[in-house]
């Protein structure tokens, strides 16, 4: 492991702001900015190691969800909904190396819209809702349930 690790560098920067900069700042606005920077760095240090795993899990889930949707077959995905094209695009995107996450998310946006509008078959909706539920749970885990209030 290369030392200092990114997490250690971020931790050091937090201490620099806290111990060296903050005591020198006289304006309350600047002090507030420094404190937000310290808190944000703490967040970055907390997620920097889990972010790659989050991304990998996201891609794996999108891939698995689209594979499951494909297995449902055409009779579950009406031609006029435009979802067949979205699904084909998502399957192509998931086969790329590395997988094209943005293209997969664009396709998922089309599927989620169809579910919200009540235009998706029950089987399709079940898979889409399952993905969204897991996606929200991953976000909750990544941010550690320590979200500040607005």
């Amino acid at each position, binding site marked *: 492991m290369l030392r200092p690790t990114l997490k250690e560098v971020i931790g050091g920067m937090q201490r620099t702001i806290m111990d060296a900069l903050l005591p020198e700042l006289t304006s309350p606005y600047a002090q507030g900015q420094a404190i937000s920077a310290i808190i944000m760095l703490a967040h970055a240090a907390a997620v920097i190691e889990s972010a790659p795993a989050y991304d990998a899990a996201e891609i794996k889930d999108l891939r698995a969800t689209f594979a499951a949707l494909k297995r449902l077959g055409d009779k579950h995905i009406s031609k006029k909904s435009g979802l067949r094209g979205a699904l084909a695009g998502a399957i192509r995107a998931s086969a790329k190396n590395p997988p094209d996450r*943005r293209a997969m*998310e664009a396709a998922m*946006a089309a599927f989620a819209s169809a579910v*919200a*509008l009540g235009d998706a078959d029950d089987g399709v909706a079940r898979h889409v809702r399952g993905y*969204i539920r897991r996606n*929200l749970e991953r976000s909750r885990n990544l941010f550690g349930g320590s979200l500040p209030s607005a």
Partner: protein
Amino acid sequence: MDQHRLTEYFKRRMPHAREHRVVGLKRISGGSSRETYAFDLEWSEGGQTRTRAMIGRRDPTGGLLKTDREREFKVIAAVHRAGLKVPEPLFLELDASVMDRPFFIMDRAPGRTGMSAFPALEAESTRAKVADDFLSELARLQSLDYREYGLEILGPPKNPEDPARIQTAHWSEVYERDRMGEHHPILSAAFAWLKAHPVVTDRVVIVHGDYRSGNYLYDDNGIIAMLDWEMAHLGDPMEDLGWASMTFWGREELAGGLMEREAFYRLYEQKTGHRVDRERLFFYRVLGNAKMVVICLTGIRDFVEGRTSDSMMPFLELLIPQLFEDLANQLRLV
């Protein structure tokens, strides 16, 4: 803002006065869409020395919103004239050469402010007074005839379904502009749903656009001034009510941290004499969540692309998951 340039500005704007002095100029946080400065102006007039506490709001280099300060100033002036609790607007300066960017000056109201929800530690009597004032002021705002106050400049909707369509189209466009190539399935689904279900308003009112806890100054006797009028427009009365009662701005089941949500709606009905239309309210609560995500994306983009160095901006990323959860629940995506 610069103390010397500001002093020179007041000399030009207040030629009848002498010995102008800007005292204690400092940037303050809050009002994130514009740079906000607090100061006192001292001057002599008629042989007397006078002092007035003021706020300067200058256009930002980047930030949460891209709004027109002239509109904001005119709206504040109109509602101030109507007797609503707002800071008195004093000077509008559109010439960017005066202070690098356009700005306006208004009275500095006293009082304290919370964050997104009314602070839980405040006294029960204070909370009750603020809650009552919050809905009284909203009722007064919604009772104003915008034509009487010269607010046709906000662009009256032509058809009853226009308020919903215009707001949906606006925030959907901002999303397309500021999503930085990312796709957010839940947000896309929200806009698809909003476009497919435009509600029809029964009356056009002045909409504050950011009417919520955190955007007023208060003391133990209630609200002193409603702030942050930069998103004001003409639209559906359910828009401000929906926004104010979003789960995001609340605490537990308390709308805005002020009162239980159903009691909040009942009090609104008492104050306005109009019933809460649940279908329209739901539409505007969905729109509110989608709009708030988009506002966050705008702030993040400006931070990422270097138009603002406000260290609060990256925090916006942390707010989005809760908004997505609320939208997913509303649209039955989970």
